Structures are given as C-alpha cells and as structure tokens.
C-alpha cells in the first residue's frame, strides 16, 4: 500500500476559500453589529454571505503578482514615450484637451473610488465581498497613479493640466463628477456598490473608458492607450463585481428587489448625466473620431444594456426609469454640452473651438435629424463673429440643476427648442432640476441634496474668492477673482484654441521635427 502523499499546494478552490472565507472571524468582546454598523441599515437583507462567489477566484497573493507584471510593461512604454517626445505624434494639439478633461474630471474619480471601496470593504461582513472590494480599492489607487504618470508628459508641454487636484474641488463643471462620487460615497455600502460597481462600471463603463482609450489610439497617443490596456483586466474584474453584487442582493431576499430597483433608477440617471462630458468629447474634441456618441450609445447602451435588463427581468428588475429619455438624448447632448463650454470658455481650464467645415459635415452625417436643424446655425454664427473679432464669451453665471449640478442646458424630451426645467418646494425653498429624473432623486432624499455645493451659488455667496478679496470694491471683476481662486491662468489655460499657446507651441515643435 502506498503511503499517502501530503499535498503541498492548495488547489485553486481551496486556496480561494482559505484566502477569503478563511480570513474572516466573528467578534467576541464587542457585538458584531457594533463593529459592522453599516451593512444592515439600508434595508438590504443578506441571509447567507457564503453564496457570494467571485468568479475570478482571485486572491491577494496572485493579485500582487499580476499587477506587478502589468506595471513593468506600462512603465516601459511610458518611459519610451516620454524620452522620444512622442506627444508630437498626436493628430493635432486640440486632442490634448481630451486629456485635460480626463485628468481633471476622471482621474480624481479613481481616487474617490479607491477610498469608497476601502470603506465598503471594511464594512461588509461577507469575506468574499470584502476581499473583492479591497482589491478594487487598490486597483483604483493604481489607476489614479498610472493615469497621472501616463499624462504627466503632456503636462510638461501643455497648459490646463498643472493643478488638477486643486481644480477638482473648486472649478464649476468638475463639481459634476465630484458630487456624483460624493453622493455615492455618503450612501450605505450596498448603494455604493450599486452606484459605482453596477451602474457605472457594469452598465456605463464602455461609454466612459472605451471612448477615451480608443480615442487615444485613433489620435496617436500611445501613452494613454497603454494605460488603457494595463487597466483593462482590472476593469473586467470590476464589472464582474458589479453584476455579482446585484445578483447576490436580488437572490438573497425578495424584499431587496424594490430597494435595488430604486438605486438602479437613480444611479443609471446620475451616471448618464455625468457621461454628457464624454459625449461632447467624442463628437467635438477628438480630431480623429472613433465613432459618434449616438453610435456608441446605440451599441453599448441600447444593445448591450437592453440585453442586460432583459436578463435581470427574471428577478423582477425592469430597465431604469430614465432609459427612454436617455435614448432620446443621444441626438442632442453632445451638441448642447459643447455649445455650453464654448460659451463659458473663459471660465474653464481647457480650450474650446468651432469645428472645422469638414468636421461639421461629419457631424451632419452622424446626426442627420438634428445637427443642421438645431446646432449648426449657432456654430456658424459664432464662427462669423469670431472671425470678426467678436468671439462669444458668456460672462454671467448659469442656473444649475440641484442634483446633477450641470447647467440647465438639456431640452425637453421631444422638443429640442425648449429648456427642460422642473422644480420642487422643500422647507419653503425652491429647488430646480434639469429633468424629471433629477427631480425624483431629490424628492426621494431632499435632506441630502439641499446640502449640495453648487459652484454658482458658492460664487455668489462670496466663497470662491481668495482671502482678502473685497467683492464690493470699485471695478471688482468677479470672473478674474474666481479664476484667481481656481488658480487658472487667464489667457493660457482657458479661452479659444485658436490663438492659444498650446496651438502655437505645437506648431513650432512639429516644425522643428521636419526642418530648421
């Protein structure tokens, strides 16, 4: 008879169990609910945490190894890119404004996600979910760092990227992504996962991440593309966490279904509103366009998302309430957002411009029902005026939506000539919204949204000037004072691309590569 040989190594399944479930314990000298106060109060009922399965079966020891390999490859490319001044190979200096939007508005969200997942990873009582959140937390910190490194080479040569962390907490349009994440982080852990892992990472990420990364590839930006590749496997893990979490909640208790549905309604709409910035980037800011926002919406949201909600129907989940309005908006939001930034171009630290004639032809071809009828006339008028030395700059502050914090620029569903405005009364005060769905989010939790830090109102309250500035003094220039508070350099970081330092430098440096 053979002597049984002791297995030295654990199998994948055993190792997964040891490295997740095996790491947990129940408290003894303090009650569990005191140590884990957050994972019940939202009303989500979990009967058996062991039903939680991470399909990737990734454990911490393997995690470090994989991530280390990816870092090595990424930094080799970033170093080569930097040493060869490869930024000169991008299509056109206008493209760099895409990166400005990314580093200003998206990269700080990675850091928020890092903190958010660290928090919920601490507060779930189920070990499988805790380990998955812990890894995602580290991923997000890594993304924050690698994005910063991938884009840092551009910061040496172009304006509008030098102070992005400072801007994130102050500049008006950056309150849109910031408030999105603060809303999620201040919710309970299950709502946070529904918001970030499911609605954002699972349903909408192909509309956020992919356009930036494939846009980078189309426009010759290998540094950003390589970052995208390096983050891709993390993203698929994050998407899996998103869908796993939703199915887990739905399977655990039928009472969870209406709560999850409400969160899906809310966070689909909040995510969709945030993607307005991406829509505008795709249609107007990439010199070489991958596809239109409308095409991307049809492919990633209508087709893929439609199939997802058909699949979730067996749990009693329907498509989000704002779905139809979001689909209707695909013909409009990119144009409306770009026109808004063009108008407020003195107050934003990136450049705006009127699309060239061939670009307008592209837009008309991709938006046959709306571009020529609704949007081309204002662009052509602005072009005429700019050519005559009268470039359009709005100097008055806009009205913002209390929930999404975007200026009230969206039109009524079905009528692109009329601004959509809704209002609610709460404690004798009026609150205004860009849509039925933003109003509904407010009406559900007014106590939360009355605390919103709306940049326009903060400026009028006098909270966005540097110490010692007196707004009542003679000749006070509020825009200049606010830009000073933002630490945006007027005439360099802002205004039209035409005539900018970025445009001039890029042309000079490109010229130096092909002659003296």
């Amino acid at each position: 008879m053979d002597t049984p040989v002791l297995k030295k190594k654990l199998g994948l399944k055993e190792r997964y169990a040891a490295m997740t479930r095996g790491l947990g314990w129940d408290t003894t000298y303090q009650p569990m609910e005191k140590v884990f106060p957050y994972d019940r109060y939202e009303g989500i009922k979990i009967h058996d945490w062991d039903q939680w399965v991470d399909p990737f079966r990734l454990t911490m020891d393997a995690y470090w190894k994989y991530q280390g390999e990816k870092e090595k490859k990424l930094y080799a490319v970033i170093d080569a890119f930097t040493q060869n001044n490869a930024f000169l190979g991008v299509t056109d200096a206008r493209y760099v404004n895409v990166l400005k939007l990314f580093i200003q508005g998206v990269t700080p969200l990675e850091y928020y996600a890092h903190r958010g997942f660290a928090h919920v990873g601490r507060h779930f009582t189920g070990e499988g979910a805790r380990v998955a959140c812990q890894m995602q937390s580290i991923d997000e910190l890594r993304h924050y760092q690698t994005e910063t490194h991938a884009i840092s080479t551009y910061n040496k040569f172009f304006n509008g990227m030098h102070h992005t962390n400072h801007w994130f907490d102050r500049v008006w349009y950056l309150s849109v992504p910031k408030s999105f994440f603060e809303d999620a982080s201040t919710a309970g852990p299950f709502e946070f996962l529904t918001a970030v892992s499911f609605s954002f990472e699972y349903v909408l990420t192909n509309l956020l991440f992919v356009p930036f990364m494939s846009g980078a590839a189309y426009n010759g930006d290998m540094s950003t593309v390589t970052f995208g590749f390096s983050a891709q496997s993390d993203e698929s893990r994050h998407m899996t966490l998103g869908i796993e979490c939703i199915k887990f909640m739905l399977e655990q208790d039928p009472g969870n279904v209406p709560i999850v549905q409400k969160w899906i309604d809310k966070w689909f709409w909040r995510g969709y509103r945030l993607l307005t910035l991406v829509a505008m980037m795709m249609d107007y800011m990439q010199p070489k366009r991958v596809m239109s926002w409308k095409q991307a919406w049809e492919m990633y949201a209508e087709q893929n998302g439609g199939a997802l909600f058909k699949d979730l129907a067996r749990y009693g989940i329907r498509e989000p309430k704002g779905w139809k309005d979001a689909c209707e908006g695909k013909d409009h939001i990119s144009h409306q957002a770009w026109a808004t930034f063009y108008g407020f171009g003195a107050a934003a630290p990136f450049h705006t411009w009127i699309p060239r004639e061939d670009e307008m032809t592209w837009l008309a071809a991709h938006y046959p029902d709306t571009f020529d009828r609704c949007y081309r006339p204002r662009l052509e008028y602005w072009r005429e005026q700019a050519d005559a030395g009268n470039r359009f700059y709005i100097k008055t502050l806009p009205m913002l939506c209390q929930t999404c914090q975007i200026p009230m620029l969206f039109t009524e569903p079905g009528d692109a000539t009329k601004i959509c405005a809704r209002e609610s009364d709460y404690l004798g005060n009026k609150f205004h919204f860009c849509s039925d769905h933003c109003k509904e989010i407010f009406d559900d939790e007014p106590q939360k949204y009355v605390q919103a830090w709306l940049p326009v109102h903060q400026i009028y309250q006098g909270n966005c000037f540097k110490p010692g500035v007196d707004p009542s003094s003679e000749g006070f220039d509020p825009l200049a004072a606010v830009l000073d508070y933002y630490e945006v350099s007027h005439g360099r970081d802002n205004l039209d691309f035409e005539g900018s330092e970025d445009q001039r430098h890029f042309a000079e440096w490109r010229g130096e590569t092909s002659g003296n």
Partner: protein
Amino acid sequence: MTVIALKPYEFPLKDAVEKFPAPLVYVGWEDHLMFPAPFCLPLPPDMPFGALAAQVLPGIYGYHPDFAKIDWSHVQWFKSGKPWTPDPSRSLAENGIGHKDLIRFRTPGLEGIAGSCS
C-alpha cells in the same frame, strides 16, 4: 421620503436666502439657445421689474442679433413655466418674485439664428 441613516440626519440648507447679498433670480430667454441655460442673478427685491429688461438683460443677452429687435410691450412672461403678467413699475418682490424663482420670457416673432431657436 427621508434619508435612511444610523443617526438623526439634519443639516442646514446650503443656499438659504440670507447667505446671499440679494435673493437669486433665474432668467431664461425662450427660443434662444445660444445662451445654453437660464442665468442666475442676485437681484435686490426692491428693484423695479422694468429695470430687469432695461438695465440687466442687455448686458447678458445683448450679443444676440435678436435682442435689439425685441418689442418689450409684446413679450410674454412665464413664472415656473406658467404664463404670468408682471407689472414693470412695481418691484420684484411686489411682483411676487422670491428667492430662486425661475422666470422666462418669450419674444414672439424672434426665433433665433436662422429660425433655429439658437
């Protein structure tokens, strides 16, 4: 509905009227989406309503070629989306305009650049 929380959840309004030098009024011009959203303006409640058209709006909307063509006696006003007839000689407060009210005006016959509502 209320926020579900572990502890009493009470926080002051961020934008109560006393925090501003003057109450806020939102103003929008219908059919002229070159101005992408209504504007937000702190306006003294004792300012006559007529001063809005005469003194405030030209600085905001004057860039638009339609602005000079406005016949103010035919302008239609809306408050919270409903038709409304303000008295230009009376103050904003006397006309019932309070903190964070939204008023919009339509200028019949003027429909923006090339009739596109731009």
